[in-house]
């Protein structure tokens, strides 16, 4: 994975020193909150419901063991013993003290990490496929291009005061595991008819209060013009994106209001102009970056067979591992949606995305032992060990069982994305986490029978819990001071991206759990051979599901 050069490290260290001084001045009183607020936000420090919250950037979700260990140590040293992995492939800490933050940032910088551009109207953390460099179906590894975009977008002077925040995603496979078309810019690395590799640009997607699937703006941009074309897309947005209305300021609104053809025309005009300025980074820089993403030293001649005689292990392998491009290896996903069997036989669900400091250190150690010292954070709030020898899977699973990290539920109805909701977030209207727990606990006995069902919960219309993209989505709203939950069906974040539709009137907390159960029962009764929940919904449409839920 990428290692900082002297410039990267110097920039991050300088920012820590600068923020240390700004924090001192705020506490001493020479900086007002009005002046300090944008400064702390530029360093990822929000003031949330219970305390300051720090959002730490995990570029394209990739971490080394040492970085992961530091995240666990920070949870214990500066927070209350846990961290929360987010739908942006980042981690957040909920109980941070302002006076501790400079020291925390210095600790992060010691492992080449920071919290810069995790807030504010700038280009945020670049996201990517959590299986990058390991997947069987990718064209090339997208991470060098994500890293190039990270370097280009970090402290880019022209794009630090955009009309609104800006999110970019890069993938390189047909199977979209990163919700690429729900980003401001989604880039898919593709091969054209001539066999050349380039980028397809999808621009103007997003969730929030106005969900839009990004349309294709350009089918093929040569890889050596990736930055130039990105800059053209951003420049048009920066010039004409609305600054008068926060709710209409994202690029999706500009593309929609201008119309795709006109936006495309303006980007092409800007692109032609930028090409005369030769702003594309030198090829040597890309080649330098690529060396950091060379395949690890995969062993050859490894066995592909796995001894599945232990039934619980077999269940975990089936649910939580994926094929790897190298023979004898697998991709293993660690679920952070724990389901724990209680003494009375019931199931207790954990908090989606939360992990204790000790669990984070365990995962760091397992990466070192079994995955070439690499981990990935997924936008579904799980952790991936990308390169595990199949022969090591049993030992890995045993270690995960000991750490209560071996729940075999990837992509089933209990593997729920949930935003922090009203339990932590000042913007939320309703709680998300307890709803996720109740749904998971109710549905756990049927989860295996139901199969793939992506359920996503947001506690407000900002949609951090991706409810628009859930096969089943739940949106929490405030109805005259009382939490109320709307049910949505039919969303999908994959290659066949679709937006979910609201079924009908909302429910209270218990009612929404009943509604999910009714929807899944109807699916089980109606499904045809091989159909997932989403397939059955798409075949039958909303009406019969609505009747089953409300009838």
């Amino acid at each position: 994975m990428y290692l900082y050069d002297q410039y990267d490290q110097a920039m991050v260290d300088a920012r820590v020193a600068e923020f240390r001084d700004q924090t001192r001045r705020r506490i001493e009183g020479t900086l007002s909150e009005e002046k300090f607020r944008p400064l702390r936000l530029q360093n990822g420090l929000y003031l949330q419901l219970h305390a300051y919250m720090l959002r730490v950037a995990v570029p394209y979700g990739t971490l080394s063991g040492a970085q992961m260990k530091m995240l666990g140590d920070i949870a214990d040293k500066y927070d209350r013993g846990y961290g929360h992995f987010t739908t942006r492939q980042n981690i957040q800490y909920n109980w941070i003290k302002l006076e501790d933050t400079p020291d925390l940032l210095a600790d992060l910088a010691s492992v080449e990490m920071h919290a810069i551009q995790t807030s504010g109207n700038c280009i945020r953390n670049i996201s990517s496929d959590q299986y990058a460099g390991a997947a069987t179906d990718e064209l090339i590894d997208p991470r060098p291009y994500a890293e190039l975009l990270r370097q280009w977008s970090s402290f880019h002077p022209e794009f630090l005061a955009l009309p609104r925040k800006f999110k970019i995603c890069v993938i390189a496979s047909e199977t979209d595991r990163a919700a690429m078309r729900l980003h401001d810019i989604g880039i898919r690395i593709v091969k054209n008819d001539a066999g050349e590799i380039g980028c397809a640009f999808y621009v103007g997607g997003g969730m929030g209060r106005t969900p839009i699937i990004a349309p294709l703006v350009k089918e093929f941009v040569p890889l050596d013009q990736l930055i130039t074309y990105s800059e053209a897309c951003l420049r048009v947005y920066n010039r004409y994106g609305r600054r008068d209305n926060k709710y209409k300021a994202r690029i999706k609104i500009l593309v929609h209001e201008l119309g795709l053809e006109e936006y495309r025309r303006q980007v092409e005009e800007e692109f032609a102009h930028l090409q005369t300025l030769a702003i594309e980074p030198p090829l040597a820089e890309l080649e330098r970056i690529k060396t950091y993403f060379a395949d690890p030293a995969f062993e050859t001649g490894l066995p592909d067979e796995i001894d599945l005689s232990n039934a619980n292990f077999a269940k975990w392998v089936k649910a939580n591992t994926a094929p790897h491009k190298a023979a004898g290896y697998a991709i293993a996903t660690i679920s952070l949606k724990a389901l724990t069997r209680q003494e009375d036989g019931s199931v207790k669900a954990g908090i989606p995305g939360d992990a204790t400091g000790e669990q984070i250190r365990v995962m760091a150690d397992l990466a070192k032992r079994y995955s070439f010292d690499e981990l990935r954070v997924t936008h579904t709030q799980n952790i991936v060990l990308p390169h595990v020898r199949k022969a090591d899977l049993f030992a890995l699973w045993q270690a995960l069982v000991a750490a209560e990290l071996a729940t075999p539920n990837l992509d089933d109805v209990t593997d729920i994305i949930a935003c922090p909701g009203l339990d932590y977030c000042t913007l939320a209207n309703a709680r998300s986490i307890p709803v996720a727990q109740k749904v998971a606990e109710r549905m756990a006995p049927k989860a295996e029978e139901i199969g793939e069902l992506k359920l996503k919960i947001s506690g407000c219309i900002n949609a951090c819990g991706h409810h628009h993209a859930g096969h089943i989505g739940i949106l929490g709203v405030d109805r005259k001071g009382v939490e109320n939950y709307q049910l949505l069906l039919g969303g999908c974040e994959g290659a066949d991206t679709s937006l979910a539709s609201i079924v009908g009137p909302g429910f209270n907390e218990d009612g929404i759990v009943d509604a999910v159960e009714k929807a899944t029962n109807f699916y089980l009764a109606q499904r045809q051979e091989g159909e997932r929940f989403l397939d059955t919904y798409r075949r039958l449409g909303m009406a019969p599901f609505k009747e089953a839920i409300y009838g």
Partner: protein
Amino acid sequence: MKIITGNDLKTGAVIWWTGQGWSLHVNEAVEAGEDGAATIAAEEAARRVNGAYLVDATQDADGIRPNHIKERIRALGPTVRLDLSLDPSATPAKVL
């Protein structure tokens, strides 16, 4: 009643105006009276609180209960992690 809440500048902790200073415990809050806005301005200027504002609350035999669920969660802690609450008697029912 109207009470004043905000966050401690250095720690970010949720705090409540007691008439003489700030407390971590909502039950020590007092009626803000007609001087609420002036109290907020003075305390923010003195950097003893950050982002202070008035909230509606009700006082009964069990103590002071903010009227809105968001303020009750701020007072008692996340409903999903009551082990982190300052109030050992906090329960989901009490928060909600």
